């Protein structure tokens, strides 16, 4: 038990040190702009289809479920407002982050893990390049920038999915009523947390993926283990941080 706790604290300390160096390197030369763009393409554009599909189905499902519940109270016209609040505040950021964690935290961990076990990271250090600067910082910047953008797209597509269910399919309200209510219900607080959350989730996904990748050991089996750990840890951190941010914003 004591060993487990010591390992846990040591790992967390190591994580904080790596994260600190990754942030420091944002402002240090050399800057690997090409790598940032490549990562933005892989993480952002690469995740676009799955994020759009998930956003669409989430919105449609929420609308379908809510329409039934709201009908009970004669408040079916509020479906746009409910979907909008749910998606923008919580489900949009969390679902998008979970998808990107599954797709990219694993991808980052396995890529860096393979580089670690084949000594490419050591080779990089031997050739005079800081692996944190070359590998972690570009992924950190790319994920932190792309995840909020993906979330905005997921929210918009989700609202469109909910619109298709509520207006043409169920005929609960008119298109104008739907879009007006779903827009007017949002206040700056909702938009702020809807954008701050994915920004922080992006940082978590990149750092956790890179951390587990960089500490991979034990050959190909180790790469598999690192990949799984990266997805599990980043998913748990996403929920934990979502709760913390909710707590802060609810009190505002």
């Amino acid at each position, binding site marked *: 038990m004591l060993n487990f706790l010591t390992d846990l604290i040591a790992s967390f300390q190591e994580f904080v040190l790596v994260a600190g160096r990754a942030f420091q390197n944002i402002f240090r030369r050399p800057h690997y702009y090409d790598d940032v763009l490549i990562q933005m393409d892989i993480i952002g554009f690469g995740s676009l289809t799955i994020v759009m599909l998930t956003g669409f189905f989430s919105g449609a499902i929420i609308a379908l479920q809510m329409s039934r519940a709201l009908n009970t109270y004669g408040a079916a016209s509020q479906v746009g407002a409910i979907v909008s609040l749910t998606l923008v505040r919580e489900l949009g950021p969390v679902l998008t982050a979970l998808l990107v964690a599954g797709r990219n935290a694993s991808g980052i961990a396995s890529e860096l893990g*393979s*580089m670690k076990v*084949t*000594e*490419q990271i*050591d*080779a*990089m*250090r*031997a*050739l*005079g*390049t*800081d692996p944190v600067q070359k590998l972690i910082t570009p992924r950190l910047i790319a994920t932190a920038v792309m995840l909020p953008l993906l979330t905005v797209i997921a929210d918009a597509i989700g609202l469109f999915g909910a619109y298709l269910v509520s207006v043409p399919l169920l005929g609960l309200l008119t298109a104008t009523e739907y879009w007006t209510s779903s827009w007017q219900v949002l206040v700056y607080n909702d938009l702020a947390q809807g954008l701050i959350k994915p920004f922080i989730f992006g940082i978590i996904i990149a750092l956790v993926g890179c951390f587990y990748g960089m500490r991979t050991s034990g050959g190909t089996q180790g790469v598999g283990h690192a990949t799984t750990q990266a997805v599990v840890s980043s998913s748990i951190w996403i929920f934990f941080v979502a709760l913390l941010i909710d707590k802060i914003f609810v009190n505002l």
Partner: protein
Amino acid sequence: MPEDVDALVQFDDVSTQFGESWALRDVSFGLRKSETRIIFGAAGSGKTTLLKAAIGLIQPDSGKICLFGEEITNCSERELFPLRAKAGMLFQEGALFDSLTVRENVEYPLRNQQAESRLSEEEMEHRVREALRFVELEQTLDKLPAELSGGMRRRVGIARAIVTEPPLVLYDSPTAGLDPITANTIMALIAKERDVRQTASLIVTHRFQDGELMADFRYDAGAEELVPVPEAGKEDRECAPTQFFVMKEGEIVFSGSREQLHQTTDPYIRRFVKH
């Protein structure tokens, strides 16, 4: 061991442990320009750790390591980068960057040092082609490492290690897992690099033949091939004679010439001598 001011690499009582086992134990030696050290040892005896510690990839628990005359034992990673860039290293499987082509891999160290060297694109291209021609792989410029055989990857690794013309090159098991013909080709290239550029070399290997080849042959630039060193000429050749280390549980248990290695009666050391 007194400090050798001319040494490119100097170890003084260097020790390090991984858990309970010794990776390096009181290791002391110096390596000067154009000298060759062949390091034998069983798996896990600390050979790779020694190489990695020499360029600061691993920090020892105690002792002092100097690289190009500067103590690196307490250097930060950033302080080490310029020193490391002056040494070449061939990793066990080549450690080429998968996502980069052969050209980009070999170019990598040059681009890293571009701020200081200010090489033009043409000069860089010339140096890359020259390094690849040296390992006889100029035709692979635009291939990815995955498209190359194990031996070819190792040769590109050598090209990457020597493209900056470093005074010191470290080779980690350059022939491991290769067939005898490819292994001899690799060792011939290492001998060629040593003799053409007077490079100091630290070579970790399991094969006694690798050590013998380095000790008994020299590269003849005129004939463009390796030729045996005549017995009489071994002492006064341009390159310093090849020395051998045998490591056991992190300790250097033998240090001496090929002849001394042959004469040893220690059963562990004799395992590395071809009968």
